[in-house]
């Protein structure tokens, strides 16, 4: 339907409604994200920020009750979660999941090769894979030892968030959703994570940065700032809107 409408359009969310456990959280979200853009979504707790990221990635706990989402002209909502990921949607989890017994290396290699298979590419050889790991790890200043551990198990809060961005660097998504990536990070970790994200930016990809605070946006400068309140985007502006929010609070903006 939207295929070819715009060469640069990456994501189109149209009147999206979603609920969890019968409770409606998203009440008609509209958003268009073009290639090369950084969108920040801010809003008070309970506004639906995390629900939006869950719905875009196909989390089975949420039910889409109305609306459409198109990724490069494809019906995103019709895809399985893994297909969405292979098609280039990446979520940096607010709470990365620990998976005891599954090594980070095995996990990452499986994920990367499944994506490559989807793209019709050969799997990476062990050597190519390790070179890529080494290169991307440096970007995040991640210690070597983490690769031999189980996924996220025993990682500190900062290591978990860096590990999310490391995975993003490995998978090279066209759309990265960063869900409260700044929460629980000290200022040094925040800087490293943000620099990592900035270095991964290309004219062809885009990110949606979900955050409660303006702080992260000092480092990842958005092209657009949207205020999500009670399940709808109630205001859109440029980066100065984030500063205004910081000053006046969400209630000041809504009124």
């Amino acid at each position: 339907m939207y295929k070819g409408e715009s060469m640069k359009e990456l994501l189109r969310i149209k009147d999206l409604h979603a609920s969890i456990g019968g409770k409606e959280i998203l009440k008609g979200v509209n958003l268009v994200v073009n290639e090369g853009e950084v969108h920040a979504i801010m809003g008070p707790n309970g506004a639906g920020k995390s629900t939006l990221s869950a719905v875009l990635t196909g989390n089975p706990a949420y039910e889409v009750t109305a609306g459409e989402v198109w990724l490069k002209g494809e019906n995103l909502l019709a895809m399985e979660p893994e297909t969405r990921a292979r098609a280039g949607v990446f979520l940096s989890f607010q709470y990365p999941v620990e998976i005891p017994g599954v090594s980070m290396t095995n996990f990452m290699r499986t994920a990367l090769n499944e994506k490559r298979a989807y793209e019709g590419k050969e799997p990476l050889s062990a050597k190519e894979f390790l070179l890529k790991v080494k290169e991307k790890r440096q970007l995040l200043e991640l210690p070597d030892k983490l690769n031999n551990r189980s996924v996220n198990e025993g990682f500190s809060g900062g290591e978990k968030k860096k590990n999310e961005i490391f995975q993003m660097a490995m998978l090279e998504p066209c759309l990265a959703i960063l869900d409260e990536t700044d929460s629980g990070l000290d200022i040094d970790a925040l800087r490293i994570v943000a620099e990592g994200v900035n270095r991964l930016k290309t004219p062809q990809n885009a990110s949606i940065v979900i955050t409660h605070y303006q702080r992260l946006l000092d480092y990842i400068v958005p092209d657009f700032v949207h205020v999500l309140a009670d399940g709808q985007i109630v205001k859109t502006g440029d980066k100065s809107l984030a500063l205004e929010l910081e000053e006046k609070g969400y209630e000041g903006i809504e009124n």
Partner: protein
Amino acid sequence: MTEVHLHNNECFEKVFLNEPVDLQITQEAGSRVKIHLINVQWDIVQCTKEVVNRITIEQVGEGCETEIYALAYLRGEEKVTTETHVNHAVGGGKSNQLIKFVLDDDARGRFIGDLKIAPDAQQVEANQTNRNLLLNETAEMRTQPQLEIYADDVKASHGASTGQLDESALFYMQQRGIGKQKARQLLIGAFMKEVIETISNQYSAIRDEITQYIESES
């Protein structure tokens, strides 16, 4: 039933792969036992009847060590009961048990874990852990731990839990592009690996065989 008598400081180590076991071991001072019961590949004919594994350990000398590891991966209508009876009749001994079941389809698993520490058996360290994974709503697990501890200066711990695959871990893997089946396979493999990894290097051939089988089947 097979009876084994271990004299002072003797060792008994064995991996039982897909064979029912009925074993009674008497341990004299300083002797060591390490047993693996692996039930992962029952023959179609066998799976109509219930398979019972029974291990009985009598620690009659001081300073004995006993390790029992059991893993059953059951599908279809397979049924396995694993019984362990560990009796610390004297002090200073150690026992460690890790019993895991993975149950799919209409499989039935049962663990009976009998652990006794006699009144004079001081300074015993005993652990019994039973973890079970249900892959299907129709699979069933029964766990009956029985602990009788009569000595007061001992370290005894036990735990039993039955759960399902971690949905949040499944989704996390899917979000990275790993297909749901493959993600399940990785999680099931990780669950079973904890038992397989305890098999000693002298049994590395059988350990690798089991690992390969699990990776191809789960």
